[in-house]
């Protein structure tokens, strides 16, 4: 009797009994949870940026380059000096802009002093980029010696 009633579509629509789920929900939830945990652990939302650089030439080749068009910027953890003269960054940018107006081929050699960490150098680099100086070269401080690890 029940069989006949179930097979009647009209009866089914009207009747209280819902059609049974073909797939049980519990294993599905398990899988979804595992996927969720995987994506939560494996994904990163860090938004990286990158500064394109040319690799440095060894100091020997740099010193033979024409010194006239090359200015040297020495960067310390707290101060910057242009061609041996300690300057604030703003003044330094002004001078560079003046010089660049005269000499469009001006190349700036950036030389970190001693154990200066990378962070202040990157900060100065940002300022230079914002000021429109792109002809930059990294030069090592010849007096710097790597500390033994």
């Amino acid at each position, binding site marked *: 009797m029940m069989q006949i009633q179930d097979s009647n579509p009209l009866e089914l629509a009207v009747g209280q009994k819902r059609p049974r789920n073909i797939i049980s929900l519990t294993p599905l939830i398990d899988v979804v949870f595992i996927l969720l945990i995987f994506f939560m652990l494996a*994904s*990163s*939302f860090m*938004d990286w*940026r990158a500064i394109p650089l*040319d690799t440095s030439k*060894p100091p020997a080749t740099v010193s033979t380059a024409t010194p006239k068009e090359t200015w040297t910027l020495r960067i310390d953890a707290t101060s910057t000096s242009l061609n041996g003269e300690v300057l604030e960054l703003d003044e330094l940018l002004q001078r560079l802009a003046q010089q660049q107006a005269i000499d469009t081929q001006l190349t700036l050699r950036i030389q970190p002093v*001693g154990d*200066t960490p990378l962070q202040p150098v990157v900060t100065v680099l*940002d300022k230079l980029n914002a000021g429109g100086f792109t002809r930059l070269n990294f030069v090592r401080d010849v007096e710097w010696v790597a500390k033994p690890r």
Partner: protein
Amino acid sequence: MFQEHHRRDDAEARILPLINVVFLLLIFFMVLGSLSATEPFTVGVPDSANQAEPPPQPLRLLMGDSGQLALDGIIMTEAELLQEIRARVSDNPAVRLQLKADGQIPANQIVVFMETLREVGVEKLFLVTQPVES
């Protein structure tokens, strides 16, 4: 019999909102999160206002704050690393190198390292930075 069925449907109906939320979270993480490359040590990348994007699918070079080196997640010595880079560059000269260096290591160390990289045939390098809010 009927009683049992009724309870079961009831339980399913109660967890449906939970499943909805879990599905939404799953889709959120799938769409917005990019899969991160695993790194064998943490690197405190320098902050910068620079906005340039890193190159797609680079060789990932890692330099930790005490000078540890790793290439694509594998820690190696400098000699091994240079040999590996030389091999990769001669295989594919268009390969991009991305250097993720700690902001606390001496900048001169990077400069010296860039000189050695030039010797193995690398001309261009991308220094990874972290954007700062300005």
